[in-house]
């Protein structure tokens, strides 16, 4: 009983604090930790990361392998939850959401692009792009229309009925980008989107990201290639789970 009372006193106070501190930024992280328990010892993939991203920014996250870039991206994309710390998207406190609410955020607020594309192999490009809309409960006809438009936006109008194994790496990644954009998310996240592509194709994809940014999308991209990072407007360097440098380059 005693503990329950104590909690009752503390929690509203804590929420009060949180409410006072609701940031205006699109993304806001405060002292984010992500700790993995490996048997006896603890691995801290993130050690107190704090930063804000405003609407319309184009951010690159760079850092050596194992520094925590993917861990951070997964938390931003709500695929993972921080062990400690607070995280807001559009003023909503994500770090305390339950599973269903997180699924909704993943569906509506963020679009995720992976290094390995992660398309459903047996589905056509069109169906792959429709998938987020299916989980959003969009009626079939509207779904199809929006998926087509998203594919046109990435110049794949003529490949809609192709399956992933009938597409090149660059085309697959563009399908994945169309899928990420189809539900008009607040932010586009890409974890090493060119990691599996050759140089020419990488440039093509980076041009696409640049265009999407010019069209008003907020983008965060993880990379370890300096010339790719150089295209962003802001570079956050991570080392050993901490932000080492956060600089505006354009």
């Amino acid at each position: 009983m005693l503990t329950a009372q104590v909690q009752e006193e503390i929690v509203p106070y804590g929420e009060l604090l949180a409410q006072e501190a609701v940031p205006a930024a699109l993304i806001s992280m405060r002292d984010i930790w992500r700790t993995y328990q490996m048997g006896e010892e603890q691995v801290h993939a993130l050690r107190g990361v704090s930063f804000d991203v405003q609407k319309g920014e184009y951010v690159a996250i760079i850092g050596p392998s194992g520094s925590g870039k993917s861990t951070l991206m997964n938390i931003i994309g709500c695929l993972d939850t921080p062990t400690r710390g607070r995280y807001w998207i559009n003023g909503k406190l994500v770090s305390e959401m339950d599973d269903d609410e997180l699924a909704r955020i993943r569906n509506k607020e963020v679009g995720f692009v992976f290094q390995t594309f992660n398309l459903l192999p047996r589905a056509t490009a069109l169906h792959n792009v429709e998938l987020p809309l299916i989980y959003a409960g969009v009626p079939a006809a509207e779904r199809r229309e929006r998926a087509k438009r998203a594919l046109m936006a990435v110049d794949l109008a003529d490949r809609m009925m192709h399956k992933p194994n009938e597409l090149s790496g660059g085309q697959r990644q563009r399908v994945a980008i169309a899928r990420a954009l189809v539900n008009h998310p607040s932010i586009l996240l890409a974890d090493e989107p060119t990691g599996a592509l050759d140089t020419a194709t990488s440039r093509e994809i980076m041009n696409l990201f640049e265009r999407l940014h010019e069209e008003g999308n907020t983008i965060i991209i993880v990379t370890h290639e300096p010339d790719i990072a150089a295209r962003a407007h802001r570079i956050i360097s991570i080392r050993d789970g901490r932000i080492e440098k956060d600089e505006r380059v354009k």
Partner: protein
Amino acid sequence: MVRIKFLRSGGSFYENLWMAIATLRAHKLRSSLTIIGVVIGVWTVIGISSLISGIDLAVKREVESFGIRSIFIYKFDIGFRTSEPTREERMRPNLTYEDALAIAQLPSVEVSVPFLNITNNRWGQKILVTRAGKTSAAVRLEGTLPDYERAGVETISEGRFFVQYENDSSQPVCVIGSSVADNFFPYGSPIGETIEIGGREFRVVGVLAKREQFGGGEGSDDVNNVIYVPYNVARKLKPNADDVFILAVARAGYLDQAKDEITDLLRRRRQVPFDQPNNFSIETAESIVQQFRSLMAGVAIAMVAISSVGLMVGGIGVMNIMLVSVTERTREIGTRKAIGARRRDILWQFLIEAATLTGMGGLIGLLLGWATSFVIRLFLPSYVPLWAPIVGVIASVGIGIIFGLWPAWKAARLDPVEALRYE
């Protein structure tokens, strides 16, 4: 369109169904091996239930062709028996001609006639039927009274039944069944012709209309292979015989009362002590059908056992295949979660996949069952009772849901980050 809320945000039911069918088509061999158990389970239910329904209908028709107001009385147990008469049964006194006449006097009884079977003579040898060099030992020979015509079991198609006078004066006349007519009188009318029974000449006075029977009937199993002669004449062909079968017909609406009156009368006439069971049996069409149905209950239980084993085997197969499928598609599950699938969406996806798998098994079983019933219909008036396909479909889909639950739950609970990292 009606949409249930919990299905809605996972796209639609159709979407899941479409995906499930696509997945199953991609693994045709694996899918078909998995559903064999379910196919057999449902096939058994449909096949055997149509067999049972067919036999049931045939037996009911045949028994009822003896009249739904008919009461059958004999010293041994009548109906579907699986054993020889017991010692107690063999010790029972015969029913007599006089018993039959006494029953006829009861107020609720319309007709009561004795039958004396003389197919075999008193030494157990067949009494032969002969005409123009043709001989048969398979004809059922019965002595009865003209009143039998009033029982409504047989219809005369040609000529007439013998009359009381012919019985009282022991005239050698007979009424023949349609098969006897076909056999011995293939050309022209048998009326007025003679036929030899046990070495004596009989004059045919009537031919009976053909009776429908279960399974066709051959030789001595053919209900139409029968000759009726006057009771008194039968007594002469088989002297000292007094082992009588009695057919009584109740007045309309008095079947139960007639049964009670006959039972009381026979217990008195046969001096059965009040604390002893009847030493004769008294049955109606309904009670014989009832006997048959309790016999069939055993078959039904065997059917349930076979089909449940089939369904269980199918269920375990489905669980196994779904677990494999979940593991194989870990990345797909991670991807779906990354783009907004909730736990319940994944759960539904896999449940619908499992239910589609077993449901297809059920459907195949259903088709095989119907085909089987079609074959059965060549021999029996078989039909597939409505409940059988309903139970078959519900059971097969239900099996998919029950055994798919655990794999689907495993899939739904996968952590998206780990699922996406899975190789």
